[in-house]
């Protein structure tokens, strides 16, 4: 499989006091579900934001599908942040129309079908939805795209176990298998069964990048147990 994402000698800092990445090198293959695992403040969200085009690296190069991060890569990257990022005064149908306008790979029928299963009507105002339903709608919109790279930043944080199962099921059944999913989380036990590869990030450094099954066989432990050992305080 070819490398979908190439990160080469990337450096990123916030101000003078906080160096996030120094000489980061990473490659991600197509067609994989990759867990980006690490404790709070390890650089997971920063990495995802650089891939999404929300942050610029201070040095180095990032390419997605052979192109530098920009409008062309944003057309093939589907990003779900860990916050509510829609205009809450809009109706669901306005949001769907916007995604349809801007993303050629957006499947409108799939989006409406998934929302119908949650009993969410197109005429509903986004603000009126419950917190859980808002998160589900955002996930549905993101996963209704046939993207080459899905970036999901903490998709199961702050939700109840039933909602977590729904989110994971939605991810598995709706993503384009030709593409890759990069999921950042620190709730590993819930997610490790769906992962093909895992990346451990510690203080801005990649300490492990391996196939999940191979890692489990080598260590004789679950990924969650390995994570707890690696990141023991």
């Amino acid at each position: 499989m070819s490398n979908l994402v190439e990160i080469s000698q990337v450096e990123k800092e916030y101000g003078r006091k906080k160096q996030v990445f120094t000489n980061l090198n990473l490659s991600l293959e197509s067609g994989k579900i990759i867990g980006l695992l690490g404790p709070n403040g390890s650089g997971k969200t920063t990495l995802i934001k650089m891939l999404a085009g929300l942050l610029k690296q201070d040095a180095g190069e990032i390419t997605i599908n052979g192109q530098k991060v920009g409008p062309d890569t944003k057309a093939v990257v589907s990003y779900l942040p860990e916050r509510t990022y829609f205009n809450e005064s809009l109706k669901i149908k306005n949001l769907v129309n916007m995604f349809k306008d801007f993303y050629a790979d957006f499947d409108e029928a799939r989006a409406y079908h998934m929302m119908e299963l949650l009993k969410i009507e197109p005429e509903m105002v986004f603000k009126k939805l419950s917190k859980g339903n808002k998160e589900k709608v955002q996930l549905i919109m993101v996963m209704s795209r046939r993207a080459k790279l899905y970036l999901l930043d903490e998709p199961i944080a702050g939700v109840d176990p039933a909602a977590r199962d729904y989110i994971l099921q939605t991810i598995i059944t709706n993503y384009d298998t030709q593409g890759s999913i990069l999921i950042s989380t620190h709730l590993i036990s819930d997610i490790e069964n769906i992962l093909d590869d895992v990346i451990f990030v510690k203080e801005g450094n990649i300490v492990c990048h391996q196939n999940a099954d191979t890692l489990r066989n080598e260590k004789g432990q679950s990924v969650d147990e390995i994570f707890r050992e690696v990141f023991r305080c």
Partner: protein
Amino acid sequence: MLGKCIKNEIVNRYKPLLLAYIVQLVYSPIYHMLAQIQPHITNNYIGMLVILLRIMWVFINLGVLGVVFIYPLVDFRNRMFKDQGYLTNTLPVKTSTLMISRAITDILTYISAAIVIPFASCIAAMDFSIYRDVAHYISDFTDSFGMRVSPATIITFIILIGVVILASTMISQWMFNAAYAFGHSFSNNKRAMSVVGMILIYLIFQVIGVIFIYILSETGIASEVVFNGLDNNIKAANNFLAIISVFEVISSIGCIALTGWIVKNKLNLE
């Protein structure tokens, strides 16, 4: 993509504006009615209530002006640098296209305000003679020069005045946007750096303006018009306004481009 971006801008911004206009247009005949009945009210309490209701008209107009001029600044902040910025800045659209679509929507907003606000005022006064009297006023104004000035000259004058006012408003708006974008390119002290940015950008444009006026005076265009032509030659005034309007339009484009450059190269959505 520009059309889609403009559509997206309008969808995201039209509700407060429409609401403000509806409130203003609905209240304007009520204001007129209150003005008519007030002289006939003998009860002090009812009279006080009517006065308060008439004062509310002032606040409604202030509210409309706030939506027209301040809401776009708030919307720029929210949709570029707050949570909604995670959506706006990940759209597969060039930053320049985003900025141009915002600028076009700003222009449409100002034009709509220039139509609705005077119209609502006319309803409140129940006096639409200004629309009819403007033509008579201009005719008297030109007659005072002892010569008839062609309608084309008058129309050009009005259009150029409009362009200058519109461009000046855009410059103010986008200086704020550029300053805010500048401030948010820093990891710390964003608000303070936004203020610093505003001061820097304002000074830069003041310097450019001074240089421009100096060039105008050195070439003799300004002196000829200001000291000799403006009062007596409306065509010379049109020439001067044309130069000013070009300068203002270029300055407003410069502000928009500066904002776009900062957002494209220094975006720092932490």
